[in-house]
């Protein structure tokens, strides 16, 4: 494959991951994968893919844009929520690149992904004057659970599926 063709392949894989993100978002809603107070957002597990290859940054961000098309907060979520995803994913990629151990990489993804929820909390605070720290606590804990479970799932998937090349 030439460099150009390799680039095209990465784009298409990213696009499929985006489609998967949207599909999983809707399926989580349809099949009620929430468990009591813990809402398992299945699509968030795809965030953990970023530790394998840079191309997933675009995939998950675009998936996030498309899934947010139906969000109640509309345009704010489409722009700001997707920007949050893009920034968080880029940081996860840049840091995990320097780590060799897969488990440590995934742990980094969980921590950084949870940390960046402050952007969503800030969105809600600015928009609705919701108290920042409380909003941060609730959104970040939800994200932490989703990402932790996601990291487990991605870990097992990576044993069977080639996510890197």
């Amino acid at each position, binding site marked *: 494959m030439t460099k*150009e*063709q390799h680039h*095209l*392949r990465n*784009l*298409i*894989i*990213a*696009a*499929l*991951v*985006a*489609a*998967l993100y*949207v*599909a*999983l978002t*809707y*399926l989580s809603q349809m*099949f*009620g*994968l929430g*468990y009591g107070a*813990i809402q*398992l957002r*299945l699509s968030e*597990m795809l965030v953990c893919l970023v530790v394998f290859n840079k191309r997933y940054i*675009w*995939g998950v961000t*675009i*998936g996030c*844009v*498309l899934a947010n*098309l*139906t*969000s*109640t*907060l*509309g*345009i*704010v979520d*489409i*722009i700001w929520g997707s920007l949050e995803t893009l920034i968080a994913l880029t940081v996860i990629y840049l840091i995990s690149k320097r780590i060799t151990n897969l488990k440590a990489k995934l742990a980094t993804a969980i921590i950084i992904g949870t940390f960046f929820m402050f952007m969503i909390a800030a969105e*809600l605070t600015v*928009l*609705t*004057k*919701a*108290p920042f720290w409380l909003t941060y606590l609730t959104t970040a804990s939800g994200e932490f659970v989703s990402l932790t*479970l996601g990291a*487990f*799932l991605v870990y*097992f*998937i990576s044993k*069977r*599926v*080639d*996510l890197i090349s």
Partner: protein
Amino acid sequence: MDKMIFGRYYPGGSFIHRLDPRLKLIINIIFIVLIFLIKHWYDYLILGGVVLAGVLLSGVSLRFFLRGLRPMLWLILFTVGLQLFFTSGQHVYWQWGVLSISQEGLINATYIALRFLLIIFMSTLLTLTTQPLAIADGMEYLMRPLKVVHFPVNDVALMLSIALRFVPKLMDETTKIMNAQRARGVDFNNGSLIKRVKALIPLLIPLMMSSLDIATDLTTAMISRGYRDGEGRTRYRILKWRRQDTWTLVTFVIIAIVAVL
């Protein structure tokens, strides 16, 4: 495949339905900025009038808009309650320990509730009257100026259209795999959290595999047909900016300026 058309689109041919998606996106963005700029009660009245006019013109029953409030209901009640009971002010109507209802609290709470209502109704208006595909097309156009800062607009456009194309297919695929696993006795809906997460592994591995397979096939197909890059790619759906779009934009901008002044 009917249920696979995701989104909340409500089919119709009203004036709002026929407006250009780019226009609707631009108006939505200006509207959010406005919400932050306005300060007086009569400004809220003006924006409320705009939203109401939009709702009436769209021909969609109010029920669908109210349904949009549901996922946010708790957040709304919580923040409004917080403003109502914890704002300290000069004119206190009622007090119990740290809780008090003051004139200032009442005013703040009303403004917050209105803000929520206006934002949610406006974005619901967009998603109810515009198909997801059209919104994505509109975003693609609006992203074009970002080329100046070397944002890969063409690549993003390609990924957006491929992703939209394959959402229904992957949802089909997921349902199929889920049913296959159910027939083998996997229970996705019961058991402890750990158990349910474990049940997802045999669902996600084939799903991931087939996504990568689709990607490989599509890459081969596109390369063998000589796909180069997005520059000069022609489109199947072409957005048309009509005279009514210009007039709507002009009217909205005039209203916006009046509201801010």
